């Protein structure tokens, strides 16, 4: 997802001063990209909404530490990714993964379904860690070093997860498993 949203400096300054209207304006500006990132990684809308809420609570708490270096979206995205990855580590999410994969597998797309939809379904069937690595690397543009740091893993782990995920995506698309 490409974010070209520019936020006026004066809005950031007001938000830093604790102005609720400015904070809400920031929320409105970034709620969709934050939610989208969290949903792609976590898959469950309620988890993604929770990450959205946690992310903005953190933004409100820490906005004074944002020094204006780099795009504000980059700073907020870092928080959102961190919150999403933290949620992955929680046991309850992992426990429901297998059940969810089975339910997704049962939903058929049928012939003529657009490739994008197939890819979306195939992507959803990856493990949470694999989805996080693929989304952060391929879509959000994170480097393996950044992913490794965020996940508390090695660069090799990130590269290996990405390779395995793409191998699996290719296989699911070739075999029509995602349909």
């Amino acid at each position: 997802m490409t974010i070209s949203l520019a936020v006026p400096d004066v809005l950031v300054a007001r938000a830093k001063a604790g102005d609720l209207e400015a904070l809400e304006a920031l929320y409105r500006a970034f709620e969709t990209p934050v939610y989208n990132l969290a949903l792609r990684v976590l898959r469950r809308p309620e988890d993604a909404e929770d990450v959205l809420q946690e992310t903005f609570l953190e933004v409100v708490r820490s906005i004074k530490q944002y020094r204006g270096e780099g795009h504000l979206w980059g700073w907020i995205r870092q928080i959102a990714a961190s919150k999403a990855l933290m949620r992955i580590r929680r046991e309850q999410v992992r426990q429901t993964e297998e059940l969810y994969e089975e339910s997704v597998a049962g939903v058929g797309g049928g012939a003529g379904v657009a490739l994008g939809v197939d890819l979306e379904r195939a992507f959803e069937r990856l493990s949470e860690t694999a989805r996080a690595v693929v989304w952060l690397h391929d879509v959000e543009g994170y480097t393996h070093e950044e992913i490794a740091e965020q996940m508390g893993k090695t660069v090799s782990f990130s590269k290996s997860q990405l390779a395995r995920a793409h191998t699996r995506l290719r296989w699911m698309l070739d075999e029509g498993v995602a349909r």
Partner: protein
Amino acid sequence: MMHCTMEDLLALQGGEASVWAREHVAACATCGAELEALYQRVAQLKALPTRRPGRDRWPAVRDAVLAARRRRRERWGVWSVAAAAAVAALLVFRPFWTTSVDAADLARVKAQSATLEQQLRRYDPDGQVTSGRSAALCAALEDGIAVIDGELAQLDPNQVQARSAELVQLWQQRVDLMQQLVSARVTRAAYVGL
């Protein structure tokens, strides 16, 4: 024939591939197609539709922010009351505390002054040989002590308690001058062997 692995293809995509992988993918149609498919997948991932939250979470964020601010104000309120109570206690107990400390200091400097007075009496200036310079120094010191004695005498007895710090300071100055006077006379006496 060995083909590129997915790691090789991703390295090619990221511009980090080995020379072998770059040369191989240029020559091998299968791996070229795989690389193209990889580019396609990544492009399609980027083009996936943007999902929007079903519920507005801003009210929950706003409520949490307001609740945190309220808690902070209340916490500051408790601290403010505690700080005010501490200041009030200081103001209430300060006179007693200050007076007792000042009284002790006053007694100490008065005792020092009395000791120095006794020392000075042992060296009778009228019975000693003295230089003009020493005599001038001792006279200046005695004048200083006299000035301080005059100030002490002028202090209103009703104000003595309120101005105890000032009283201690005056007595301390008197002691300092007397120490210098003792030193001047003893030095002179030692110098002349008396």
